[in-house]
């Protein structure tokens, strides 16, 4: 059961081979047993989860055509507001914060009859690529607990990889779904900006943040996205488009598919083991009928520095609301109002978050705005234009998701810039607002998973899922599971 696809679970529920309560219990028991060594979950609540499961069982949604996921458990990244549940965003700032409302994404899954298992660990305020910035301690990679799971959706990736949940939500600002999916051997999709509502998703960098599904397969992701996506009047950046069935094209053959290979993604910086796995995957695609096209993304090398202006700038402002006045951590001792602010924030935020707030404050400050922020936004335009040009000659772009397999704890945490470069292949996609996904494509050094990144044009999700699914029909990387776990 723990290895089943969502479709299989749905069928088992429909045929009454299992129940929502039974499934929830199965995964809750697993979490209880394995989470202490993985630290993927920050919060679980058996009572709440089972209550939801009982509601699902009694709702008539299980087995119904329009709610295929009813009764199936999932877990939410702790960045999503979850009414009545503690919602920490990986931060001490929110260690006692019980969310008073549901994020749109959470509400949609609730309405679909899915059962919340708990809240998943993450880099603090989604700022990190290794899960080492969480106030609740790092998440361990289930493939090797001495290594990082990636970040910031590291808890989501580890939980699904270790089969503590059949699926999870994640968010991706610069690679936070794709990079941990790659490092933990999962399938993860960051949709086109505006496809998934950001309402109730604690903002890191508003113009880049996008929620998406993390699961074992592309098919699972398609089903999850069907529920997760859609117009939300509470989010001004949510796009008003007709609903889509993201699973509609899953089975389409790939004959004639043009895959763009940016030479910038295949240069120095990529480890040899990653390169070997990615190239093997491309060979597989050739067999499936695809042709390879060389494309250029000449400005993609600027994406990391541009991102580290834009994202901290937005974050510095987004995180101002955490001031100890209406919710969140308030310092126990202070001299006056400003001291209360400065101490509460200094105590409530971790080092990486503080660093980014300071950088963001600086690049927006008087006299520096044009040189940093405005310049970064112009470069963002150049980067986006590169993709527009590239998609004239190809249907999707492929390359590595991350330059290396999962690294060991502490390997990069001393040097922020080295850590930032973990997202070198993913960040440009966020800057351009494009959909991107990572699928498992083999194993590299130390038998750690390698991810293949697929980038599509705006609203190319269904096509990308089709491309991923066809690959997953002829490979089994996505159903491998970490050894050493029961």
């Amino acid at each position, binding site marked *: 059961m723990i290895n089943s696809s969502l479709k299989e679970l749905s069928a088992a529920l429909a045929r009454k081979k299992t129940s929502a309560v039974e499934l929830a219990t199965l995964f809750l028991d697993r979490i209880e047993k394995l989470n202490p060594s993985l630290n993927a979950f920050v919060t679980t609540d058996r009572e709440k989860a089972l209550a939801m499961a009982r509601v699902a069982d009694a709702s008539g949604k299980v087995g119904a055509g329009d709610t295929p996921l009813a009764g199936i458990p999932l877990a939410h990244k702790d960045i999503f507001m979850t009414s009545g549940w503690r919602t920490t965003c990986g931060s001490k700032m929110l260690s006692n914060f019980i969310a*008073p409302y549901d994020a749109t994404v959470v509400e949609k899954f609730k309405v679909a009859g899915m059962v919340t298992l708990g809240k998943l660990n993450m880099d603090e305020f989604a700022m990190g690529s290794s899960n080492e910035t969480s106030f609740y301690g790092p998440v361990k990679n289930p493939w090797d607990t001495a290594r990082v799971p990636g970040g910031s959706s590291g808890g989501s990736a580890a939980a699904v990889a270790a089969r503590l949940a059949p699926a999870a939500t994640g968010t991706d600002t610069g690679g936070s779904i794709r990079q941990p999916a790659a490092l933990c051997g999962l399938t993860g999709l960051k949709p086109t900006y505006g496809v998934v509502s950001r*309402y109730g998703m604690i903002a890191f960098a508003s113009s880049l943040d996008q929620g998406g599904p993390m699961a074992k397969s592309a098919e699972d992701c398609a089903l999850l996205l069907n529920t997760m996506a859609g117009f939300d009047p509470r989010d*001004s950046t949510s796009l008003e488009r007709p609903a889509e069935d993201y699973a509609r094209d899953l089975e389409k053959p790939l004959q004639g598919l043009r895959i763009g290979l940016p030479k910038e993604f295949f240069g120095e910086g990529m480890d040899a083991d990653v390169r070997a796995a990615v190239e093997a995957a491309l060979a597989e695609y050739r067999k499936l009928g695809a042709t390879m096209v060389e494309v250029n993304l000449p400005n993609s090398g600027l994406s990391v520095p541009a991102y580290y202006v834009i994202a901290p700038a937005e974050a510095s402002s987004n995180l101002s609301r955490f001031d100890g006045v*209406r919710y969140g951590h308030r310092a126990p001792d202070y001299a006056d*109002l400003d001291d209360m602010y400065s101490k509460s924030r200094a105590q409530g935020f971790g080092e990486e978050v503080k660093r980014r707030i300071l950088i963001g404050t600086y690049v927006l400050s008087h006299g520096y705005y044009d040189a940093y922020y405005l310049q970064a936004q112009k470069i963002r335009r150049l980067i986006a234009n590169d993709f527009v040009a590239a998609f004239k000659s190809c249907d999707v772009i492929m390359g590595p998701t991350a330059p290396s397999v999962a690294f060991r704890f502490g390997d990069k945490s001393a040097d922020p810039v080295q850590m930032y470069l973990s997202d070198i292949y993913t960040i440009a996609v966020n800057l351009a607002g494009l959909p991107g996904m990572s699928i498992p494509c083999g194993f590299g050094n130390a038998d750690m998973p390698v991810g293949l990144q697929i980038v599509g044009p705006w609203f190319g999700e269904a096509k990308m899922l089709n491309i991923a699914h066809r690959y997953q029909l002829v490979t089994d990387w996505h159903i491998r599971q970490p050894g050493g776990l029961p």
Partner: protein
Amino acid sequence: MSWEAVIGLETHAQLRTQSKIFSGAATAFGAEPNRQACAVDIALPGVLPVLNREAVACAIKFGLAVGAAIAPRSIFARKNYFYPDLPKGYQISQFELPVVSGGGLTIRVGEQEKFVHLTRAHLEEDAGKSLHEDFHGKTGIDLNRAGTPLLEIVTEPDMCSSAEAVAYAKALHSLVTWIGICDGNMQEGSFRCDANVSVRRVGAPLGTRREIKNLNSFRFLQAAIDYEIQWQINEIEEGRKIQQATVLWNPDSGETRAMRSKEDAHDYRYFPDPDLLPLEIAPAWIDEVKASLPELPQAMKARLASDHGLSPYDAATLTATRATANYFEDCVAAAGRENAKTCANWVMGELSARLNREDLDFVAVPLAPTLLAGIVRRIADNTLSNKLAREVFDALWAGEGKDADAVIEARGLKQISDSGAIEALIDAVLAANPKSVEEFRAGKDKAFNALVGQVMKAAGGKANPRQVNDLLRRKLAG
């Protein structure tokens, strides 16, 4: 060499919407603390703003009313600073591309007219309120007002005295209430002014300005500017330099003092709000709003002057507020256009004085315009003298009688206009006062007035004074 002041005003007008500018919370005034502060207003994590269409419509209305340009595309920006009544740690405002730019207002000080240019008007959200009453030495924060839509209207530094500033503020107040985008309630903070004041020697370059925040009455505006001008002159004359500062007016001490909380004012780190997309206003929408605009005060003023032969002063007084103008127009409609001048006199005279005395305004006049028109008609047809008319006015004000005619009937106030009856009275008076008649004939004009007085007394005040005059002169001459 003498000094001159340079003054610019920034006015925050709360827009009359049902809900807030970026959330669905109600905007009604006076709710219990924080009961009209929804998740967006208190800035819970994860919430997002969505722009209220009506707030934009109000801005368009204003732009059209002041002859400004409406931006086809404008941008919302974040103004970042920490303050407990600012829940997000930033205010959503407009910075580089405001929705309205240019335009202006004509003001009048004494006999002088002046055009005050507007720099811009932009949409933004209001902050909450800090209550400094004692909560164990702490400050209480009420966020009901947070997110209320504001239009910030900024002038060029075109004014040079407190009188001009007040005239501008009054004209603006009249306009925003006239077009219905603001209730104008200054006590509730719906209309508040910040004044930028600097002084310089006549002809010298601009001096350093200080900004007086949150002036919520015309009286405070006047007093604060006067104080500030004098203070700045004194500083400079005593050899000190003016430092740019934000100051508060203390009405109790009659002084301004620098605000401590504005230390970071020079670095708001404005940037486009990534949660809000560019606001586009199509020409069709502007046309639609234009069609819904009422006649504007300037246009109405000109029309009243030309239609009814009113003086510019009278026309200006009658169009001071839309309620006054409406009252006057309703009154004229009922009294007849030929009586417009009498209507104007009564509206500006007796009625205004009475409203003033009873602390009322034209929004809630106890006397319907049709009732005042009834009085005017009876003055016109000589049924009532002015004196009797005032008595009828008082009676109707007190709620006595359903209209002027009913009061005249009930009180027997009908003026005696029958010349036979008046002649009889005159004859009797002349017979009884031979001495006065003699004096008049001897050239003493005063004696004539005494005789008129006697006739009016005999008539119990109801004789038509003009007829009494005419008939008496004829009799004495004959």
